[in-house]
């Protein structure tokens, strides 16, 4: 082999060593980025991303539980309100009963006043007034009864709506957290393995490049 050929070969091998060095640097760079992700325009470590993911999942679980708790609280409150309205309704019925008796009493008083003749005339006026008051109370009781019925209907509708939320089982949403965590762990493991393999390859390329340079050095001296 002539000196020129020798120099050419040495130059080519040296160039290959340079390429190997470059490859090693690139592999190192890729291995470094393997455990990072771009999230919301930020380069963050996978460990940090995992924590962020975990905290988002925890937040979702908390929201599901809060919704379930509030829905059940609303169910109990509406049931209590319906119960209290029922009691109010029976009070109105009692008022109507008493009013009926008052009405009968005023009728009896009117009859007795008529029997008493002139002496009972003023008493008849009082009896008429009592009857008028009784009729007013009756109308009021009737209005209250209808109003209570309206409120009961509204509460029943609200109860039906909240029932739909309360009976919706969100257990699967809660269990999804476990699956997502497992998927995330698997992804991180995979990335760590890739990073590890890349680093190993970078090391091999670097060693190879150094060995070639050493051989060239020994050969030229």
């Amino acid at each position, binding site marked *: 082999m002539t000196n020129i050929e020798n120099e050419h070969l040495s130059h080519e091998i040296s160039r290959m060593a340079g390429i190997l060095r470059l490859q090693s640097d690139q592999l190192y760079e890729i291995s470094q980025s393997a455990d990072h992700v771009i999230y919301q325009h930020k380069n963050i470590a996978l460990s940090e991303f995992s924590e962020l993911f975990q905290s988002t999942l*925890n937040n979702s*679980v908390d929201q599901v*539980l809060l919704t379930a*708790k509030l*829905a*059940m609280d609303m169910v109990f409150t509406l049931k209590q309100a319906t119960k209290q309205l029922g009691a109010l309704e029976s009070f109105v019925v009692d008022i109507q009963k008493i009013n009926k008796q008052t009405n009968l009493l005023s009728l009896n008083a009117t009859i007795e006043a008529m029997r008493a003749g002139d002496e009972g005339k003023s008493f008849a006026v009082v009896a008429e007034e009592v009857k008028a008051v009784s009729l007013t109370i009756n109308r009021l009781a009737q209005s209250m009864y209808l109003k209570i019925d309206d409120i009961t209907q509204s509460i029943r509708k609200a109860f039906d709506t909240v029932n739909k939320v*309360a009976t919706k089982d969100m257990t699967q949403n*809660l269990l999804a957290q476990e699956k997502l965590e497992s998927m995330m762990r698997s992804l991180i493991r995979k990335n760590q393995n890739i990073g590890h393999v890349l680093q190993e390859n970078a090391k091999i390329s670097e060693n190879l490049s150094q060995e070639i340079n050493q051989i060239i050095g020994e050969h030229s001296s």
Partner: protein
Amino acid sequence: MNTQKTQDKHAHIKLSGRFTYNEHESFQNSLEALLERELTEVTIDLSSLKFIDSAGLGMLLLMRDKIPAHTHISLSGAQEQVRKILTLTHLDQVFTLH
């Protein structure tokens, strides 16, 4: 939901089968009965509980909210599936799990 044996300051409650929305009436009655007492300890026995859904979890949290903070509430004997959901939802941080 059954309030089983009770002592003066300590109530024992046993949940069995499924604890879901369908149990809300008996839960409400038990809770109202508990609120009438001055309790220091409430133990909820979950050893016969097969399933709990989100409404059931909501009711347990509601119980924690309604019962005074100084009353200690513990959950005991939870089976694997129930324990898993209690842990996943971090209810083990709200109640003492035995």
